């Protein structure tokens, strides 16, 4: 291992789902203690802490955690970056190590979202008073539902439909089949919020949220946390052979935002920033898509998974429909995608998501994924999108010690 390499030394995720008896600090503590134990280190070894939580970053969730696990006085960065919050926290800890400010650091992400419902879109009351233009559009009344939609299931539905308009081949059934795959994968994941197999008929017949996304085609709001201990190659060399063998190499860590595109003020463009990020990630890692053994990508909605096959260059440009129909992305296919069950079944506790997907890939690279193990996995990739937008990508490799 080269001195300037970055490694995951320890990593852990809680079960995703409903945790009514645990608050956010409890969940974060469980994940962090798990990651520290996994890495064979303690809070005293952490030179930096990055704390990701969309809902609690402004409340200093990082320092709240320290009050329970150890007030060591190290710098704490509380991070919020939409649905890329977890990946961003991870990257903050990595940047501190890359810069030489620390040789070991902690990143965690946590959220409590059970029963949260729609996370965007304005409610509307009866119009009353006197119409007065306000805001940057000079609106005299709320516009959600009057000028398009602001709800995420609807936004991401359009993102999938726009891909269909551009390249053809999409249908309600196609998108539902993507969801069928992820729900099928989830049956092997005991940490998933929902691990029930769902038939195509059940998925298509479920409650419609925003066509073509029915409820099981939407990411599941839930509670959960994940944490990782990151370490420099130089420091890792000073640890035991056992720790070195279980460490997972971070071959690429990239964060991008959305560059200006003609239609991005109308419909968020999740494509360009993902393409930009993955291009940088493949270059950093010195690999290409064909080297990947598994991918955990941001299926916040079934309609989103399709476009990211293309954006992550897992298939030829415009070829995502054929790629999916070939069976490639099922766990026994040539490019297993979301073998954890994805956000649609594993769940999407926003701050935790971008570290939990790293845990999933790392667990396969360590050959510790049990019944859902992708045999012989040596390289994997994680991807998240935070609308607004942010894209986080990590490429991970098995240790060769």
């Amino acid at each position, binding site marked *: 291992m080269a001195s300037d390499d970055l490694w995951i030394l320890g990593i852990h995720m809680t079960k995703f789902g409903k945790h009514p008896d645990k608050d956010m600090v409890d969940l974060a503590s469980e994940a962090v203690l798990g990651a520290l134990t996994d890495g064979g280190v303690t809070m005293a070894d952490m030179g930096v802490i990055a704390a990701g939580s969309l809902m609690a970053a402004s409340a200093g969730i990082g320092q709240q955690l320290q009050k329970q696990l150890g007030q060591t006085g190290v710098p704490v960065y509380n991070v919020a970056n939409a649905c890329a919050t977890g990946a961003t926290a991870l990257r903050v800890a990595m940047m501190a190590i890359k810069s030489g400010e620390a040789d070991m650091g902690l990143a965690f992400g946590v959220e409590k979202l059970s029963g949260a419902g*729609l996370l965007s*879109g*304005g*409610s*509307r*009351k*009866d*119009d*009353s*008073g*006197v*119409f007065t*233009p306000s805001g*940057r*559009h*000079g*609106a*005299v*009344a709320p*516009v*959600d*539902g*009057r*000028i*398009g*939609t602001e*709800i995420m*299931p*609807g*936004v991401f*539905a*359009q*993102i999938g*439909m*726009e891909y*269909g*308009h551009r390249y053809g081949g999409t249908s*309600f059934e196609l998108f539902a089949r993507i969801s069928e795959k992820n729900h099928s994968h989830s049956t092997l994941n005991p940490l998933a919020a929902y691990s029930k197999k769902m038939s195509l008929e059940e998925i298509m017949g479920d*409650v*419609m*949220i*925003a*066509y*073509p*996304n029915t409820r099981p085609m939407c990411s599941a709001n839930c509670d959960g946390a994940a944490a990782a201990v990151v370490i420099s190659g130089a420091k890792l060399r000073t640890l035991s052979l056992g720790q070195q063998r279980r460490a997972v190499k971070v071959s690429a860590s990239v964060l991008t935002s959305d560059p*200006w595109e*003609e*239609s991005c*003020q*109308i*419909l968020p463009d999740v494509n360009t920033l993902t393409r930009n990020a993955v291009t940088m990630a493949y270059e950093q890692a010195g690999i290409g898509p064909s080297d990947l053994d598994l991918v955990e990508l941001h299926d916040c909605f079934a309609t989103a998974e399709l476009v990211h096959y293309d954006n992550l260059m897992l298939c030829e440009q415009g070829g995502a429909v054929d790629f999916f129909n070939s069976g490639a992305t099922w766990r026994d296919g040539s490019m297993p995608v979301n073998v954890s069950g994805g956000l649609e079944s594993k769940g999407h506790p926003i701050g935790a998501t971008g570290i939990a997907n790293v845990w999933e890939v790392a667990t396969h690279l360590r050959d510790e994924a049990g019944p859902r193990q992708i045999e012989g996995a040596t390289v994997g990739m994680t991807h998240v999108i935070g609308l607004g937008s942010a894209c986080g990508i990590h490429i991970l490799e098995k240790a060769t010690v």
Partner: protein
Amino acid sequence: MQMANQIPLVDYLVLGDEPHLVANECTSCQARYFDRRNACASCGLTEFHSVTIPTDGEVRAFTIVAFAAPGIPTPYVAAMVDCGGTSVRANLINVPADPDHVSLGMQVQLATELIGTDDEGTEAIGFGFEPKEG
């Protein structure tokens, strides 16, 4: 003709005999914005002028929202419409909100509709796109 007691739902909708949308176009790179911008997100310069957006367009993406925040009537069709190269966010109106009546690539035209009336009797007029006749 615009009635004296009407107001557009948003300031980029121009009412009158031929209702249409206007955008703020960057005088340098021609990027277009429906909202007020401090500077151009594409090139960073700060000069804009107003341009008229064609009222005919093509549906590039849509969704039929069946579940929305409290108070918002459903179902409704939300869409991205390509109006001569400028993308517009709008609802599709005067068409049943089901996938049998709405399709990708559908040709549409701007239409206005009454949003509500305030305490002084002023009508707020919104816009959407409806299937193009003929």
